[in-house]
């Protein structure tokens, strides 16, 4: 990944295109692995406006339903309608075929405050470690 990719604590990724005029949003590889087989998605309407971290889409996996949050305040310019037929692309290609929406951001500062790749990897590392610790506690029972 050469582009400047950022992440939210809710596991969305964001890449800026067209000199910051367009933000592509999807969910991270970690998120798709946690969700397991994704079987449907509800997408927003093009032209609708969202505040930062408002729910913008809903993903159903066999295991659970999850809200996807709009990582940046802005207007929806494009949605990945192919996901309606191929929700599994989010599992198979979370950073490419599985992109979810493109948003025109209204405040670029919001992007700069998101986690970098390095920070996000560390963040996931902490989550994995907590899970391991939990499992150790469970297995002592």
């Amino acid at each position, binding site marked *: 990944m050469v582009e400047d990719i950022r992440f939210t604590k809710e596991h969305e990724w964001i890449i800026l295109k067209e000199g910051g005029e367009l933000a592509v949003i999807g969910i991270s590889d970690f998120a798709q692995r946690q969700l397991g087989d994704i079987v*449907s998605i509800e997408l927003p309407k093009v032209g609708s406006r969202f505040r930062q971290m408002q729910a913008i889409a809903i993903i159903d996996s066999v295991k659970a339903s999850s809200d996807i949050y709009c990582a940046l305040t802005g207007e929806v310019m494009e949605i990945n309608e192919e996901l309606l037929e191929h929700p599994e692309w989010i599992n198979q290609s979370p950073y490419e075929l599985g992109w979810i929406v493109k948003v025109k951001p209204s405040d670029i500062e919001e992007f700069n405050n998101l986690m970098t790749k390095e920070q996000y990897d560390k963040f996931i590392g902490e989550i994995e470690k907590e899970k391991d610790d939990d499992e150790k506690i469970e297995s002592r029972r």
Partner: protein
Amino acid sequence: MLNFHGWEMPIQYSGIIDEHINTRTNVSLFDVSHMGRFEVKGLDAYDCLQMLITNDLSKLIDNQALYSPMCDDNGGIIDDLIIYMIKREKFIVVVNASNREKDLEWIVKHSKSATVENISDKIALLALQGPLAQNLLQKAVVDTNLDRLKPFDLVITNIFGNDCMISRTGYTGEDGFELFFDSSKIDIWNKLIQIGSRFNIKPAGLGARDTLRLEAGLMLYGNDINENTTPLEVPLKWTIKFEKKEFIGKKALATQQVNRKLVGFEILEKRIPRHGNEVLIDGQEMGFVTSGSFSPTLKKSIGFCFVPIYVLPNQLIKISIGGKSYSAKVSSSTRFYKRK
């Protein structure tokens, strides 16, 4: 790994959908050792169990098994069980993991002179399920012709040279077997996976077990049935044998005014229903979803829900998911999948 009532259980290995489809087309191996297992022995064992269940043990001969709810005095379902009758004086009872302590207490309380032993930790339980299960298992079991083992029959035999009880039972809607053996012999798992490779065997977890049983219309304790549910309200009416002289809950069930029923439904839009979602009829909350998932076989959103008794098959209802309501159609039964 999921902590399931104190057991470390994999929800999935290769993925729920993959494991599900492999069970429907080839064969899968499930470790279901989390289930509770009791041995009930003695001259009173038969009478004790016959009193505890709504179904009728007198229909069994030695080496057969029976599915039944076990109800309280109000007809509420304490648990649903499979009772394996080795002989009239010796039974193995398999119960839900979440109900182990409660069931043991209840059975002991009604055991008269029968002895009840919790053998859950001593005995491992694997389920080998799928259309290729018999062909595969026959390679591991040389002393028994599995053709002769009909659904709900059991046999005490050996597998890879180890003592083993095998029953033709399962929780997937497929042909299949459950294997009971000493928990120190867990290498049987690896051997089955090894010789199963030419049958495309895959290990499967709790996630696929849930989607498989949902398609097959099988109840899950805690989701679809509990102590506030009677067998008359769910598709378990067939398990109540009123002709039996006596059993716990008989009086309450015989006089119950049933005003709700558990039905299957299919969501006509692309959302997955979940346990607890409300059922709306003409805008009014009239019931709730007990189980719901994506059906990998039908590629549809399916589930079970409680609705008033007057609701008919093919009637349109709404399911409320995350504050929005989605159209759904009531099915003619809870069984979405029936093997050929």
